C-alpha cells in the first residue's frame, strides 16, 4: 500500500514536470531600447540593452509583476542575452497571465550598490511586506467586532485623497492585462475602495488627522478627529496609511515619528489592520533629505509593530521623475480614469504603480487570510 502511494506520487510529479515543460515559452518583444539589469530593480547592474523587436522569452517575474526576467536563446538553446526589465518596456502578448509566471526569489534590490546607508536601509525592505501572523491576529479581532472583511479605507494627505488612488478601482472596465489574476481581489474590495475617506484630505498631515477642526462636519461628530470619524463611519478591516508630503515641510523627524506611532496605535486600538507605506521623494525637492529620514521612520514603525508595508519609495525609484508630477509631491497620473495595466502604465506613472502595489498587497492579504 505504501509502495503504491509512493508510485502514485512519483507519477503525479512526473506528469506535473511534463505539463510545465509542455507549456510553450512566453515570447515578448520590447517597444523601445530596454535596459537589462542583473536583478529586479535599478540597484542591480545595468549590463545590457534589449533592442526593440527582438524576441525574448519571459521566464520569471517579481512578486508585483512590474519587473520580469528575460532570456534570448540561440538555436542550440544557449543563452545569448538575459536580464531583468521593467514590464512597461515590453509588448506583452494578450494571452500572458502573470499568475502562470514563476515568482523570483531574488530580493527587490541589490543593497551593496545602494548610494548611501540611508538608501541601503530603504531598499532593504521588499516592495510588499506582509507579516501574516500579526495581520491575522488583528484581522480576527476586527472580525469579532463585526467588521466587514471587504472594507478598506485610506488615510493620508492629498496624495492619498486623490480619487485616482484606490477610488478609481470602481470605475467601469478596468483593464488588468497580464495582471488579470488580481481581478477577483479587485472585485472583492471594489465597493469600499470607491468610497472617499474623510481621513484622506488635501492639506492633511499626520498632526491634523487628529484635529477635529479638519473633520467633515457633515459626517463627523463634535470633537471627532478625521481619523476617528473615518473608522467609525466605515469600520474597515484594512487601512492604507501614508503621510509625508506635507509633514516634511512642517514637522521634525521626532514629531513625525510620534504622530505616525499615534496613528498606528489608534488604528490598532480599533482592531483595523494598518498598511503603512513609504512615500516617493524627488532629489530636487527642498526637503529631500528630511523625506528620506521620514521614510526610514515609516520602516521603523512598521518593523516595531510587525505591520504590512508597501515600499513605494523603493518601487518608484525606477520610474521617470520617481513617479512624481512637476510639483515633486503628487504622483503622476496616466490620464485614464480607470485601472489600465495593458500598456505598461505601471512603469511610467506613479499613481498606476501605487494602485498596482495596493492591489498586490490586497491580493496577498486575501490569500493569506483565506478570504473567499
Amino acid at each position, binding site marked *: 500500500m505504501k509502495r503504491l502511494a509512493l508510485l502514485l506520487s512519483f507519477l503525479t510529479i512526473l506528469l506535473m514536470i511534463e505539463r510545465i515543460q509542455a507549456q510553450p515559452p512566453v515570447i515578448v518583444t520590447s517597444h523601445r531600447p530596454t535596459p537589462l539589469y542583473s536583478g529586479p530593480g535599478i540597484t542591480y547592474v545595468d549590463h545590457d540593452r534589449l533592442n526593440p523587436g527582438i524576441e525574448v522569452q519571459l521566464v520569471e517575474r517579481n512578486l508585483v509583476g512590474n519587473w520580469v526576467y528575460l532570456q534570448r536563446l540561440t538555436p542550440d538553446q544557449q543563452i545569448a542575452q538575459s536580464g531583468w526589465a521593467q514590464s512597461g518596456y515590453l509588448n506583452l502578448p494578450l494571452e500572458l497571465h502573470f499568475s502562470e509566471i514563476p515568482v523570483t526569489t531574488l530580493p527587490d534590490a541589490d543593497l551593496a550598490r545602494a548610494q548611501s546607508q540611508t538608501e541601503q536601509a530603504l531598499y532593504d525592505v521588499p516592495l510588499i511586506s506582509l507579516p501574516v501572523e500579526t495581520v491575522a491576529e488583528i484581522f480576527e479581532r476586527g472580525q469579532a467586532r463585526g467588521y466587514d472583511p471587504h472594507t478598506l479605507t485610506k488615510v493620508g494627505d492629498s496624495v492619498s485623497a486623490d480619487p485616482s488612488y484606490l477610488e478609481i478601482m470602481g470605475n467601469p472596465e478596468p483593464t488588468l492585462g497580464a495582471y488579470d489574476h488580481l481581478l477577483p481581489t479587485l472585485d472583492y474590495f471594489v465597493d469600499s475602495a470607491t468610497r472617499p475617506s474623510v481621513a484622506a484630505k*488635501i*492639506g492633511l*498631515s499626520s*498632526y491634523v488627522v487628529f*484635529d*477635529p477642526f*479638519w473633520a467633515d462636519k457633515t459626517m463627523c461628530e*463634535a470633537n471627532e478627529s478625521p481619523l476617528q470619524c473615518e473608522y467609525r463611519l466605515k469600520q474597515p478591516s484594512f487601512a492604507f496609511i501614508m503621510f509625508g508630503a506635507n509633514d516634511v*515641510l512642517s514637522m521634525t523627524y521626532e514629531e513625525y515619528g510620534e504622530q505616525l506611532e499615534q496613528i498606528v496605535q489608534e488604528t490598532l486600538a480599533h482592531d483595523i489592520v494598518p498598511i503603512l507605506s513609504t512615500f516617493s521623494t524627488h532629489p530636487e525637492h527642498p526637503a529631500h533629505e528630511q523625506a528620506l529620514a521620514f521614510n526610514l521612520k515609516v520602516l521603523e514603525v512598521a518593523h516595531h509593530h510587525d505591520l504590512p508595508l508597501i515600499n513605494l519609495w523603493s518601487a518608484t525609484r525606477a520610474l521617470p521623475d520617481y513617479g512624481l508630477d512637476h510639483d515633486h509631491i503628487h504622483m503622476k497620473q496616466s490620464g485614464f480614469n480607470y485601472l489600465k495595466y495593458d500598456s505598461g502604465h505601471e512603469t511610467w506613472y506613479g499613481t498606476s504603480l501605487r494602485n498596482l502595489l495596493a492591489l498586490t498587497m490586497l491580493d496577498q492579504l486575501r490569500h493569506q487570510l483565506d478570504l473567499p
Partner: protein
Amino acid sequence: MKSWMFALAPLLMVGLVGCGTPPPAQVQTVEAYLQAKVESDLPTLQSLICAELAQRAVAESRTFATVSNVTIQNMSCRVDEDDTNVTCSGEIIAQYGNQTTPFPLTRYRVVQEEGVWKWCGES
C-alpha cells in the same frame, strides 16, 4: 426744532452705547481662540484652552501648518441659552496650492475656570 432734537438725543445715546457694548465673555473667548488658531499663536491658545484639553494646545497651534493664506471670514458668534456653548457662523478659509479649503465654524463648548471663560472643544 430744538425740542425735536432733544427728544432724539436719548435714542441716539442708547444706540451709541449699544454699538460699544462688548460681546459676552464667552464669545470673546471663542473668537479670540479661533483668531489665535488661525495665527498659530501658541501662547494665546494656551491661555484660552481649558485644563481638560491643555495638552492639545500645541496640536491646536499647528492646525494650519500645511496650508497658507488662512483667514476667518464672516465670523459671527453668540452664546447659547445654556451659557456654556457658543455657536458661530462663518468659516476659516485656507489655501493649499491652488485649492481653497473652507473650514466651517461650528458650536464650541466653554467652561469657566477661576472666573475666566475657556474654550473647551466642539459641542
